[in-house]
């Protein structure tokens, strides 16, 4: 697994308080990992901070799963 994927997973585990095994590529933050809409806003902010990137609001809306986040960040960084 790539370094980016590991770092994203760590953020997801910390912010959502979920077990690491549940953070699989197709896991939806809201449907599978018990996040609410505010949690997802905070997650995106944490990704921006960790990777030093800016994720515009319209792009943030497309990040629904752990895999979406990894893909977006790999392309952006």
């Amino acid at each position, binding site marked *: 697994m790539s370094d980016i994927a590991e770092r994203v997973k760590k953020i997801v585990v910390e912010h959502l*308080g979920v077990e690491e095994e549940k953070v699989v590529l197709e896991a939806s933050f809201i449907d599978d990992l018990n996040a609410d809409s505010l949690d997802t806003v*905070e997650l995106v*902010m944490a990704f921006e901070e960790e990777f030093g990137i800016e994720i515009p609001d319209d792009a943030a809306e497309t990040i629904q799963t752990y895999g979406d986040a990894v893909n977006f960040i790999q392309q952006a960084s």
Partner: protein
Amino acid sequence: MRRVVITGLGLVTPLACGVEESWNRLLDGQSGAGPITRFDTSNVATTYACEVPYGDGSDGSFNPDDWMAPKERRKVDDFILYGIAAATQAVRDAGWEPEDEESRLRTGVMIGSGIGGLQSIEATTKLIAEKGVRRVSPFFIPGALINLISGQVSIKYGFKGPNHAVVTACSTGAHAIGDAARLIQWCDAEVMVAGGAEAAICEIGIAGFNACKALSTGRAGDPKSASRPYDADRDGFVMGEGAGVVVLEEYEHAKARGAKIYAEVLGYGLSGDAYHITAPSSDGDGGFRSMTAALERAGVSPADVDYINAHGTSTMADTIELGAVERLLGDAGGTATMSSTKSATGHLLGAAGAIEAIFSILAIRDQVAPPTINLDNPAVESPLDLAPNAKRERKIDVALSNSFGFGGTNASLVIGKVR
């Protein structure tokens, strides 16, 4: 009029987390004061306060993990954490965690705060200055709003009755209990979870009260002696933090389910000074009128008051309140005991009225008045027994608890043995 009784108690105080632990240390004459550990105090005039004792949860220490999961705790200011901890204790103590919809619809929450999420406001403002507005957490606002203790507690237990929050500075806790009792009297609810919480020991909190010249500054060498109501050498209040929450219940409802009943809310009085934004009027008339109104509601004569938990903050206002109480009690002043438990806990601002109502309830339960510690050299002579440095075992059937706040807002509660 429907009668309202108290069936559950919860406390997070600078003395301890927990009702019995806080009460025992209060009776023992202990102080919750010490050097401030929460922030670097090198820029402020006051370097000590009464902080909640954090720890692993044993021996009366406060372990945040006992009350909120770490993931949820990150999203709220400490005043909400304390409020939830005290509310959880009170609800458990009352044995009132109903599963049925009707009971939940008839249970409300009214837990306020004087200031709310001041630490979060300070931290977020600094964050914006350093990193810009895009770093502001989506949980900043719901984690700092004063009514979010009431919101969080309602969500935790499914309480769907009135959901409200009082904001009247240092009278908040007393107003919350009084107003919640009235909602029960008016049939808006059968049960109300009510009280106050505060967590303002942060740089802008201390700096702000320092600017008002309200805080003690001169006892950094011995913080435990700094809160000294009625003493000639007092030099301002010592800030405290924590929460007090009670479960109020309609009397027949409590009896029908066999609830443990601590005491009854007999009366509640309110008034405004219409005088000054921070100082009470020198004749103490606002406090006098709130006490008089509470006794009238209770149908209790001044001579029947056994114990008074004073507002007594360790400021110049102490003697103004004392004068008002002497005027109220008249010749009966010689038989009552009045103490300021702020001598031990410091001033919990919006939580003060709630924790002091709880101390008054426990004074009735155990027939003992807690002491006013550090009262070594009274500033004025009084016929009232101020319980200097020692608790008083005595008859307490009726207790009066006073809370007065900035803006000239006054609340008095009369609490009595259930007859």
